[in-house]
C-alpha cells in the first residue's frame, strides 16, 4: 500500500507522531484560551508569552537551583500562574465591562513587553534543555522516542483531566454557570471575582505547563510562543469557543492533519490550518463545536 502511494511507512508514521506532538500543544493551549475567554470574555493574546515563560522558568530553575524537569513541571506552572494572578488583578480586571478588543490589545501589549524583556536578557538564539527521557522504543513500524511519547500522554491526561473537572464536578458546574450568567451565580453566594482570577491563573498555568513540556523538544527561546500562538488562535476559531472537548479534539486533529499534509503535499503544510479555518468560517462561523453567542 505504501509503495502505491509512493511514500515510506517511516515517513508517514514519523510525520504522524510530529503531528500528534504539535496537536498536543495546540490542544493544551487552545483549551486554556477557551476557558479564559468563556469566563473572562478576554482573548488572552499573552498566552504564547506565558507558554514561553513556562519554558524559561523550567530552564532557569534547572540552571540556577538544580531543579530537574519533573520538578519544573510543577514549579513553572505555579510560578507563571502567580504572575497571571498579578496581571489579572492589576490590569485585566479593569477591562471586563469593555469590548473583547480592549483585552486583546492589552494582552498583545503584554506580549511585546514580555518577549522584548526576554530577548534583551537572553538573546534570540535560545537555550538548550536536555531531554529528561532519552532513548526510545522500536515499535516495528517506527521508532518512538520516549520523551515524545510521554508528551502526548501527559497532554492527553491534562486535557482530559481539565474536561472532567469542568464537565463533571461541582467546581466545573460553577464555572459553566458563571460563564453563562456571572451576576446570578454571584447572587447565589459564590465569589465570582475570585473564581475569575483563579480561572485565569489556571489557563495561564496550563500554558506554562505546555511550555515546560516543549522545552526539551523545541529548546527555550523568547519567540517560541509567538510562533505557536497564531496557529493556536486558528485552532480555537476552527473548534469554536463553546466546548472543552471540542478544543481538545480540534487541537489533536489539526496537528495530525498538518503532519499528514507534510507527507502528501509538503508545500501546503504551513497553510493547511489556515485554509481549514477559512472554510470553517464560511460554513460554520461559530466553529465546529461552538455555539453561537
Amino acid at each position, binding site marked *: 500500500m505504501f509503495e502505491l502511494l509512493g511514500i515510506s511507512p517511516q515517513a508517514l508514521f514519523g510525520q504522524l507522531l510530529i503531528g500528534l506532538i504539535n496537536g498536543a500543544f495546540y490542544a493544551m493551549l487552545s483549551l486554556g484560551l477557551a476557558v479564559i475567554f468563556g469566563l473572562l470574555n478576554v482573548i488572552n493574546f499573552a498566552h504564547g508569552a506565558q507558554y514561553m515563560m513556562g519554558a524559561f522558568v523550567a530552564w532557569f530553575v534547572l540552571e540556577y537551583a538544580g531543579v530537574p524537569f519533573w520538578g519544573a513541571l510543577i514549579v513553572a506552572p505555579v510560578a507563571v500562574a502567580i504572575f497571571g494572578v498579578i496581571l489579572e488583578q492589576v490590569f485585566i480586571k479593569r477591562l471586563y465591562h469593555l469590548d473583547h478588543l480592549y483585552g486583546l490589545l492589552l494582552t498583545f501589549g503584554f506580549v511585546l513587553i514580555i518577549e522584548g524583556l526576554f530577548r534583551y536578557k537572553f538573546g534570540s538564539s535560545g537555550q538548550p534543555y536536555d531531554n529528561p527521557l532519552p532513548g526510545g522504543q522500536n515499535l516495528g513500524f517506527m521508532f518512538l522516542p520516549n520523551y515524545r511519547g510521554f508528551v502526548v500522554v501527559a497532554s492527553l491526561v491534562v486535557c482530559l483531566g481539565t474536561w472532567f473537572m469542568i464537565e463533571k464536578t461541582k467546581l466545573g*458546574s460553577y464555572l459553566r454557570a458563571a460563564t453563562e450568567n456571572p*451576576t*446570578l451565580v*454571584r447572587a447565589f453566594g*459564590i465569589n465570582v471575582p475570585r473564581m475569575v482570577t483563579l480561572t485565569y491563573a489556571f489557563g495561564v498555568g496550563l500554558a506554562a505547563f505546555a511550555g515546560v513540556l516543549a522545552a526539551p523538544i523545541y529548546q527555550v527561546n523568547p519567540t517560541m510562543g509567538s510562533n505557536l500562538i497564531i496557529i493556536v488562535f486558528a485552532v480555537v476559531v476552527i473548534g469554536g469557543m463553546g466546548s472543552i472537548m471540542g478544543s481538545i479534539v480540534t487541537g489533536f486533529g489539526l496537528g495530525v492533519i498538518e503532519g499528514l499534509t507534510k507527507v502528501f503535499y509538503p508545500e501546503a503544510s504551513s497553510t493547511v490550518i489556515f485554509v481549514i479555518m477559512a472554510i470553517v468560517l464560511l460554513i460554520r462561523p461559530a466553529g465546529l463545536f461552538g455555539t453561537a453567542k
Partner: protein
Amino acid sequence: MAEPLLQVHGLQAFYGESHILHGVEFEIRKGEVVTLLGRNGVGKTTTLKSVMGIVGHRTGSVKFEGQETVSLPSNRIARLGIAFCPEERGIFASLNVEENLTLPPAVKPGGMTVGEIFGLFPNLQERRRSQGTKLSGGEQQMLAIGRILRTGANLLLLDEPTEGLAPVIVQRIGEVLRQLKARGFTILLVEQNFRFAATVADRHYVMEDGRVIDHLTAAEVAGSIDKLNEYLGV
C-alpha cells in the same frame, strides 16, 4: 414587636446615568409573604435586585436581620440568607436539571433536601438528567424556585414567578408558595398579576415612579379594589 426581618429605608438605585429608585421604604417581618405591586417600569424588579445587591449603584439602607447590607457585594448578601429567583428564571443551559438544582451553595443550615424539593415538584425528578433549558416554561420556573429552597436562605425574592404561565401552572405555584409560607419561609414577591398576589400575600406595597406610595393588608384589599385598579390600570 420584634425587629423586622428586612427593613428598607431611603433606598435609591442607579443604572449608569438613570436614577431608578427614589427613596423606597418598606419592611417585612419573619414568616410574611409580601408583594410589591405596580405598573411596568415603576422599579419593582430594581427594588428586588437592590436588596440582592445586583444593581449598578445603590444608597440608603437595607437591613437584613438587623445587619446593614447596602455596601456588601451580592455574594456576601446571599451568604446572610437571602435568595433571588429572577424574572427570566436564569436556568443554565450548560447544566442539567439536577446540576441547576444543586448549584447554589448552602448558606445556612435548615434548607430543604433535594428529596423534599422533588416532592414539591415531581416533574423535575423525572427530568433530572435533561438539559435545564429543555424544560417547559412552567418547569423552568419550578426549577428556579426549587433551587433556592435548598440553600437554607430564609428570605426568598421572587420576581414575577407567574409571568407567561398557563392558569393551571399559576395555581400550582400559588399552592407551593402557601406551603413555603407554612414552612416558615419569608417571601418578597414582585407581581403584575394582582389576582394571583391577593391569593398568597399577607400585605401589599404599591409602587410608582421609584417609590412606595401605598400599603394594604390582605384584609383591606376587598374594600380597595377601585383604588388598586387606578394604581395598576394601564
